[in-house]
């Protein structure tokens, strides 16, 4: 059944609101990690959903909604990243912090480890940070990551391996995975 045009518009508005609510934070987080800038991430947030609006009618649900939106967000990030004339951004290594109040030594040490790890992740080259983010944070499968990044699955796997190795080198411990 084809609803009247006016209802269709209302539906799209509602649908966009739902998508923003459902995936907005993911988009913002991904953009923040990839671009290392809260401000740019907010720009990406807006642009991502504008692109969602524009491509909404063409979305054929061949991939999951999440994969579709994350893919758009990653592409918007890449648009920003690949431009030599793009605005330079201040590295925000410390936008993810673990508070360290008066706790036991063990808890403080754990926090320190987490902080060191998140800092190391942020220092990974873009292509490794992307796969780490999608694999571990978004919990996407290799297949979906390959779709989002438009690279072969084998490349996703090798990047994951390399990313883990780099993290291991940066942390100085062992990498398991």
């Amino acid at each position: 059944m084809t609803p009247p045009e006016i209802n269709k518009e209302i539906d799209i508005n509602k649908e966009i609101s739902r998508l923003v609510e459902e995936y907005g934070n993911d988009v913002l987080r991904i953009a923040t990690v990839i671009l290392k800038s809260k401000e740019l991430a907010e720009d990406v947030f807006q642009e991502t959903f504008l692109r969602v609006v524009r491509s909404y009618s063409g979305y054929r649900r061949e991939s999951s909604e999440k994969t579709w939106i994350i893919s758009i967000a990653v592409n918007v990030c890449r648009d920003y990243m690949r431009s030599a004339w793009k605005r330079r951004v201040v590295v925000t290594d410390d936008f993810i912090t673990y508070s360290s109040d008066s706790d036991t030594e063990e808890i403080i040490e754990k926090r320190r480890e987490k902080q060191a790890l998140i800092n190391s992740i942020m220092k990974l080259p873009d292509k490794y940070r992307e796969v780490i983010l999608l694999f571990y944070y978004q919990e996407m499968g290799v297949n979906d990551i390959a779709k989002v990044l438009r690279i072969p699955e084998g490349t996703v796997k090798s990047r994951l391996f390399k990313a883990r190795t780099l993290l291991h080198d940066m942390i100085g411990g062992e990498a398991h995975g």
Partner: protein
Amino acid sequence: MAESNERRVPFSVSDDMIKEVLKSGLSEIKASDELINITLEKCQAEIENKQKKQSRKFMFMTYKVGAPLAAGALALVLILNSGGLFTKKTYSGTPTAMEGPVPSAAAVPEDAAGSVNINTDEQVASYGFAAPQVASESTRLPGKGTQMPEEPSSGLSVMRFGEDTAALNSLANRSANNDEPSPDKLDRLFTAITELYNLKNGTKLGLAKEGITRIYTLPKSGVNAETLQKANDFHEILSGEGYWALPLKNQDGIIDTVLTVAEDVAPAETSVSDSDTVYSVEEKEFIVSSLEKGSIIGSELYELFDKSAISGLISKAGYKYDNEAEIIIADINYGNDFIVLTQAGNEKLVVPMLTNEDLFGVVNKKVYTWPEFVRIISSCLGQ
């Protein structure tokens, strides 16, 4: 934070730990209500614009009159080059992606003989010159932005063929024409950057000097339908800001890579993306990005570098192309979409070179007269 990182002791990194660290660390990052509301407003406007576009097309079809392009006066100020979107960023006071600085004359040394030093870890390469020239604002190329923009540059940029790089004085909206650097100075700068690129990447590419192209950007406020319609010709919509594009050829004489070069005017503590490298030439820094052949941007740029291909398109469209005519190539969308601007006789022509054809309402690689182009684009912008 960096300090605490230094004091860490080695520990094991497991999958679970990575996951947990990301989950907990990123959980604090949430879209604010303001950001959500502004985004939804923009989305709603976008949806309404689509509907208006459909209505307008219907009316035009029905009455078959030359609808006065009042649509353009709807004043939807849309930036041609805002991340592939026709929207002007308004949310964040922080500038977005685009800035189009071009190398200043001050950055060009008098003597190109110097030492080369590359620090790949920091993505910084430097080239020391024996006789550096003192920098001054007055020697900057026209439109060279020295400040971080408050808004994204629209990214309409211009590349020229067949001219030396110092003779770019004929465009409107330029304020420092008399102080442009000499071709020799630019030549030495670009040669140095090419050398640095080769050293960093272990390549032996040669600078295709004939293809060195200047790229300008639109005014930061963007170009709206009204501005387009009021413009007597394309010079009036161009800003003086921009960057340079340097085609590099391999040993077979084929363009292998295009470097975009923009003077780095950001504070020293800022970083660049992995796709960019900061090259230090004397005491000036330049952000250099290589557009690999085969990428969307690269493939379009490569075609744009072929002047004969462009003149062929124009001749094929029935225009008598003058080989001496100025060819301007404008980047209208983050380096993804371009328009070629030139003249045949008294006719001002525009040839879109797009990767996002649907976005602009014009046909890729079709030759339009300037009025035709303005009518279509401004209608598209005004929707």
